[in-house]
């Protein structure tokens, strides 16, 4: 009883924190902030700083100004293919895999027969790490021993799915989309379940067709899910790494910015300054996407 009284008293009175409250808030907010500064902002700023230096990880750090960036843009052949592939990744996941996931979610939500079975089958790849998806992709697409060429039975001139730089990125995107679709589907499925059925009924009474109902009524109510899916799609696309690394270390047509960062910093090359410059580019690109997207979503959210 005294506890409830105390609480009431507090609620009624002016909002003031006791020193104990302040200490608790200080610790509870302070520790995460410190961790955030130390583990996220620290390394980020360090990367930006290091990107203007020349450092092999062992010897002295030399200041080289914007040399790394100059080299990166003009004299590092894998760079532009990596940028292009990263953007392709965003476009493919965003324009093909995500809408497809939405379509599947809608179909399943309508309650097709065996929908539980489809649901679990389509969701299955999501539990696999992309590295594993990369290994599976090799079993399927390998030129000499892959399943796909065995099915096509084209022994004289088999297609080099993973070795041909014009072709392999699409195969990898397919494999990545295989996993991404299931992920998106499950998110939308959860969202669709929460849409109030009376909305649809009302729309039907007003004479809206099924497509109209979906695009004008259901999809807008899914706004929170849309935000999440959009952010996830962009992040998944920009941080893509393990699948191409598992396949061929991200070379020969499969370049990605994340791979170039790893190759330069973590690999034996140990060009930490140069690798940091690539990381800064990746950071800028991701910030660009995420910030624009969030600003738009938040603004739209307020209006709605």
């Amino acid at each position, binding site marked *: 009883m005294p506890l409830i009284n105390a609480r009431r008293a507090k609620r009624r009175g002016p909002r003031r924190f006791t020193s104990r409250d302040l200490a608790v808030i200080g610790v509870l907010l302070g520790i995460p902030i410190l961790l955030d500064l130390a583990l996220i902002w620290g390394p980020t700023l360090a990367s930006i700083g290091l990107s203007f230096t020349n450092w092999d*990880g062992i010897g002295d750090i030399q200041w080289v100004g914007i040399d790394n960036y100059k080299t990166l843009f003009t004299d590092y052949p894998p760079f532009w293919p990596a940028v292009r592939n990263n953007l392709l990744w965003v476009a493919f996941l965003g324009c093909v895999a995500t809408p497809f996931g939405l379509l599947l979610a809608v179909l399943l939500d309508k309650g097709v027969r065996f929908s539980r079975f489809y649901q679990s089958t389509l969701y299955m790849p999501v539990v696999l790490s992309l590295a594993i998806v990369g290994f599976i992709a*090799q079993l399927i697409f390998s030129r000499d021993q892959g399943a796909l060429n065995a099915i096509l039975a084209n022994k004289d001139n088999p297609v080099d799915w993973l*070795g041909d730089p014009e072709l*392999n990125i699409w195969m990898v995107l397919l494999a990545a989309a295989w996993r991404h679709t299931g992920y998106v589907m499950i998110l939308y499925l959860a969202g669709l379940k929460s849409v109030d059925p009376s909305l649809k009924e009302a729309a039907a009474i007003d004479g809206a067709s099924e497509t109209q109902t979906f695009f004008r009524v259901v999809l807008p109510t899914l706004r929170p899910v849309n935000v999440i899916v959009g952010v996830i799609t962009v992040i998944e696309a920009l941080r893509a790494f393990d699948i191409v690394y598992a396949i*061929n270390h991200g070379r020969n047509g499969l370049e990605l910015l994340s791979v170039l960062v790893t190759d330069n910093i973590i690999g*034996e090359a140990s060009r930490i300054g140069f690798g940091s410059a690539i990381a800064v580019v990746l950071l800028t690109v991701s910030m660009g996407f995420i910030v624009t997207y969030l600003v738009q979503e938040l603004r739209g959210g307020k209006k709605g």
Partner: protein
Amino acid sequence: MAPSLSGHRISRRALLRGTAAGAGAVALPTLLTACGGPGNEVKIGSNASDAVPRKAFAEVFNAYEKKSDKKVKVNTVNHEAFQEGINRYLKGTPDDVFMWFAGYRMQFFAEQGQLAEISDLWKGFDGFSDALKAQSSGKDGKQYLVPYYYYPWAVFYRKSVFAQRGYEVPKTFDEFRALAKRMDKDGLDAIAFGDKDGWPAMGTFDYLNMRANGYDFHISLMGGKESWTDPRVKNVFDLWRGLMPYHQKGGNGRTWQEAAQSLAQKKSGMAVFGLPHPGQQFSDADREDLDFFAFPEIDSAYGQDAVEAPIDGFLLAKKSKRQKEGKELLKYLATPAAEEIYLKRDPNNIAVNDGASTSSYNALQKKAVDLVSNAKQISQFMDRDTRPDFASQVMIRAIQQFINKPNDIDSLTKDIESQKKTIFAAN
């Protein structure tokens, strides 16, 4: 294929190590009294993660433990991951003694001051040739490496295929090309080829370059002292381009293991490999059938003088607090006996020490010994003879690009040269 899987393994190991360290802090006092202080133990950083070498090394270290009543603690890390992490490894807390490679790749770390000098040990060593000593020395002329074994590169083939079709071992490049053409006509892929991992094709480049331009040019090219737009380099790519039609198609999509399997399955006729590579993909019954010949002569001025034979060995970390114990272990590893124990278990390499008995060698190993001992020069391998960042960041890509489009040599070499300049200017 291994690295990313092993990445998980490592992080898990790191986690375990962290937990162990926490637990160790509690248990440390009792442990210390139990094993009589750290002076009794030597730690070895091992990149021998494959089953066969791992077991073979374990026997060597066991033998040393028995001989010296020292404890040897082996820290095995996945081969590729060890390579990729070598910088951080040396900078952090390296084990006392660790496995690494000879040549430029070792000199690089010697220059950085990460390796302990062992010139005093070398004075007592027996059975190592001058070529070996040169490969174990830093640019300052001091010794840092105890060489352990090497595995020469050559052109591998199946005896039965050659016998059945009446092929003869080619001595010159023209004969080699003619043979390749004949195999092509017989429906074989003349040269098995897989460069998905990026490094296997480097062996072919190295041999073409050493046969056409000589060992000295090769080394100075790798050392960044020659221009890649030099007509001599273009000639190497030109020669290679002439061979491309006889290489197995789709090399960039095939691992070297798959290439070796096609040799084992008699689908292809020859393959440029190192000694341990093809054998692993052959069944026990077929291994007898495997044979090799030295890479054919291109310019008679250089003949078949140079042999590409990477050397693996042991180094002592400068940071190690057990220099004395480390050196004792190195001294043991330099003996013929220590090499014999290893090679009995892993017959895919050959000993570097002249004193090591060859009685347990198979025919292929014996032939490899001949090849190496008749060599006038021994090169390591492209990624061991040049800066690691140049090999991994520029050459892997350049060679894969060449495999895709063998006709664009001019722009390719220009590309390599301009990147080489930035990288070699960096330090």
